[in-house]
Structures are given as C-alpha cells and as structure tokens.
C-alpha cells in the first residue's frame, strides 16, 4: 500500500499530510499518556509496534500472482485503541521511507492515513461490532486484523484513483483498476493476517491475562479457588473457607483504596 515517492501530485501530498497530522499528534499523546499512567503497558505496546514492524517488512505471495505485505495494525488497535497505532504505524512508514526507499516523504501523509488511521479504526470497529453481536474474543480479533489490513489497501486504491483518474472512465474507472491490483491481491493476505492475530492472542490470553483484563479485552475470570469451592467444600469445608477469606480481603482492599483517592 506504499504510494511511491513523488507519485501523488503536490496538492494531494499536502492535503493528505494535513489530514493525517492531527491523528499522529493525537496518537503520540495517547502513547505518552498510556506509558505514564500504566507503565506496565510498555511491554505490550512494544509488542504491538513490533508486530507491525515485522509484518510490514514481509512481502507475501498471493494467489493472484502478485505479492504484497500485511500491515499488522489491528493488534494494537484492539489492545490500546486506534490512536496509539496512528503513531506506531507512522514510525514504521517513516523507517521504510527513509531507509528502504519504500513509500516516501511526500506520500507519507497519504500512506499514514491509510495504514495508521483508516486501518486501525476499521479494525477496531470490526472488533467492537463482533463482540457486541456476541462473538468471542478470537473471532473478533480475526475480523479486526483481516479488515484493518484490507481497508488499508482499499484506501490506498481510492487515494490513487482520486489523484490519477482514468482518461476515459474518470475516478470510478481508475478506482476499479487500482482496487483490482490492491484489494484482490490482499484478500488471502488479510485472511493470513487474521489467523496470525488469532495465534498471537491465544498466546497472550494465557501469558498476559492481567494486562488484557486491565485493558478490557478479557473479562476477569471468577477466582479459580472460588470456582472449585463446591467440590472442595464437600471434602474439607473448613480449609476452603479459610483459604478464600483472606484472598477476598486482599482483593477488595486495593479497590477501596483507589476509590478513596
């Protein structure tokens, strides 16, 4: 989805830069706020940025006979909400524009708008919608990852069609043409990215449960000791009671403290 350097007319290049800039600035503030208020988030923030870094470096073959890369922006959008990805995605694009001659500085605004703004927001919307319709975490993650990827490429195709309308069929004709290149190739890659996201979240739900609960991605599970209490109670009622009592006390203490503050 990288529009090559100089391939957008100056007016479009400036327009997209102005359009993307507020999202990136807002995203930078969101990252700083998250790190300051929840220092324990730094680890997962790093994972979200790293995931985008890896995926956007790898060009994968598609059944259409061309190759393209996934974006990986859905993960951070689900975990930290989309503004955070506006900054992280733009950092990736800047790295590629400066070091790899991939994308460019004049097209950075347009590329950031598609990959770091539209993609994360569409992915987050798909995640929320799936959850609201009663879907589980993993189907919602799949939808978020796949659609953030696909919507990024659809946006790029429309940006190019707007800047380079077809001589005879105009913007619509150009859009069909560019969508034929970008969107069709991207469908299998989006599915692959969705599956990768599901794999990663399966690891995270086991190993990063406290973080996911705090971020609201997972609902706190009932206390395992409380869950096994009925069976334990029949065997040794007194020990189960003494076990659960202190744990309940320590749990309620911090929340009461936080409420007082």
């Amino acid at each position, binding site marked *: *989805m990288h*529009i*090559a350097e*100089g*391939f957008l*007319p*100056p007016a479009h290049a400036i327009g997209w830069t102005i359009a993307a800039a507020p999202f990136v600035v807002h995203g930078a503030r969101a990252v700083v706020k998250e790190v300051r208020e929840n220092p324990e988030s730094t*680890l997962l923030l*790093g*994972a979200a*940025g*790293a*995931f*985008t*870094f*890896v*995926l956007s*470096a*790898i*060009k*994968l*073959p*598609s*059944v259409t*006979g*061309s*190759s*393209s890369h996934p974006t990986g922006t859905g993960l951070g959008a689900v975990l930290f909400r989309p503004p955070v990805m506006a900054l992280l995605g733009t950092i990736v694009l800047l*790295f*590629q*524009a*400066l*070091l790899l*001659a991939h994308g*460019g*500085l*004049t097209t950075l605004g347009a590329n950031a708008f598609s990959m770091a703004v539209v993609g994360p927001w569409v992915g987050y919307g798909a995640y929320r919608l799936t959850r609201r319709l009663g879907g589980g975490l993993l189907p919602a993650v799949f939808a978020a990852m796949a659609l953030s990827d696909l919507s990024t*490429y659809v946006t*790029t195709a429309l940006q*190019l069609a707007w800047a*380079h309308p*077809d*001589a005879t069929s105009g913007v619509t004709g*150009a859009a069909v*043409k*560019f969508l034929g*290149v*970008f969107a069709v*190739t*991207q469908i*299998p890659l989006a*599915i*692959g990215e969705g*599956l990768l996201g*599901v*794999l990663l979240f*399966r690891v995270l739900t*086991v*190993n*990063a449960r406290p973080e996911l609960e705090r971020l609201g991605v997972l609902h706190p599970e009932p206390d395992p000791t409380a869950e096994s209490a009925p069976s334990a109670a029949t065997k040794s009622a007194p020990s189960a009671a003494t076990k659960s009592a202190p744990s309940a006390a320590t749990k309620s203490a911090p929340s009461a403290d936080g409420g007082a503050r």
Partner: protein
Amino acid sequence: MRRRQLVTALLVLAVVALFALPLVLGAGSDYAGTDSQASELIEESDPGYTPWFSSVFSPGSSEVESGLFALQAALGGGVLGYVLGRLRGRRVAEQIPAPPTEP
C-alpha cells in the same frame, strides 16, 4: 491441553498453506509487488505524469535493500519475542511457589 495444541498446529498449518500454495500453484508467476504495479499503472494511464520528488536515500542494490528489509523484520521479531518470552517467564515464575526463606 491436547486440543489446544492441535488447534495451534492447525492454525500454523493454515497460515503456511495460505502463502505456500500460491508459490506451488503459480510457478510461472513472478509475484511483482502491488506497490510497483500501481506505479506502472499510473505511468501507463497518465503518461504525462512525472514523479516530482525522489527518495532522499535509496539502497544501492537489491541485496542491500533486502538486507534492510530483513533488519526491519529482525528488529520487530526480536522485540516481539522478547515481550512474549518475558510474559511467559513471568507466568511460569508465578506458578512456582516461592522457596522457603532460610535464615
């Protein structure tokens, strides 16, 4: 636990198959990048358009370029592996009861 591992294996297999199948089926294809295809489309449909700005730095050869792409993937993969390793280590450490403190 076993079912969980099976699901993981199937997911990995699906991802690999999704990207390996095109390579096997379309052996004649050269898998040009969509980014460069789009640039070609513009040059075709809009021959009067000339890019008005060129990259500030371009890797000298395709070898250097793929090296830099590998560097990008390595940085991302390294950080991701570090985070997952730390999270897993933390969980394992939590499961092991603290050793009895000896005076």
